[in-house]
């Protein structure tokens, strides 16, 4: 069935170092991929989504590239900031006539001074 696998658990980085959070997926159809971010005591909200025309989405310094050959949509940022500390979810909508949105287990990113 459809699924999303992320870098699991906790990732701790020093401020200024690059960020890479892995996401791979399995899907029946050609899916749309998303990254959602959830700060402490807040609701998840959209950070990035994949495009159908191979453009690379970017937001707040984060970017992600959909690679259909490897079924991946890794999240990257060149330099981590303290404010990037949050829970990050990769998600897929498998398309077709089913709008079921499936999330991975989440990666807690902690950025330290």
């Amino acid at each position, binding site marked *: 069935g459809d699924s999303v696998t992320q870098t699991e658990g906790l990732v701790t980085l020093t401020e200024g170092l690059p960020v890479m959070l892995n996401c791979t997926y399995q899907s029946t159809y050609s899916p*749309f991929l*998303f990254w959602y971010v959830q700060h402490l005591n*807040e*609701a*998840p*909200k*959209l950070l990035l*989504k*994949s*495009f*159908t025309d191979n453009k690379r989405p970017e937001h707040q310094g984060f970017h992600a590239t959909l690679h259909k050959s490897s079924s991946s949509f890794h999240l990257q940022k060149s330099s981590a900031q303290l404010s990037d500390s949050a829970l990050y*979810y990769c*998600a897929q*909508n498998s*398309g077709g006539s089913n*709008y*079921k*949105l*499936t*999330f*991975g*287990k*989440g990666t807690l990113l902690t950025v330290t001074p």
Partner: protein
Amino acid sequence: EAAVTQSPRNKVAVTGGKVTLSCNQTNNHNNMYWYRQDTGHGLRLIHYSYGAGSTEKGDIPDGYKASRPSQENFSLILELATPSQTSVYFCASGEAVANTEVFFGKGTRLTVV
């Protein structure tokens, strides 16, 4: 911005009791979702809906029912609450287009004792 309101925000229930979590959206979105969030499991889909009168089973529907009496309202019902249903529950809404974002409510913290 899209508005999704959940009530109550906190709830303590007794084992075997009935619990109803309510969700209202003013975005005129067709699709609505109920997720639960648990450490180590991420966001897991319980039920979702394509519009008034429709409910679909998500990935973990056992022990839960859903009701969508109108475009705006989507309820999650626990007929016989158990301690294993202690969790944070999120409602979300989105358009019936595969590559658009969903908008989350602020969550309901449910404790079953």
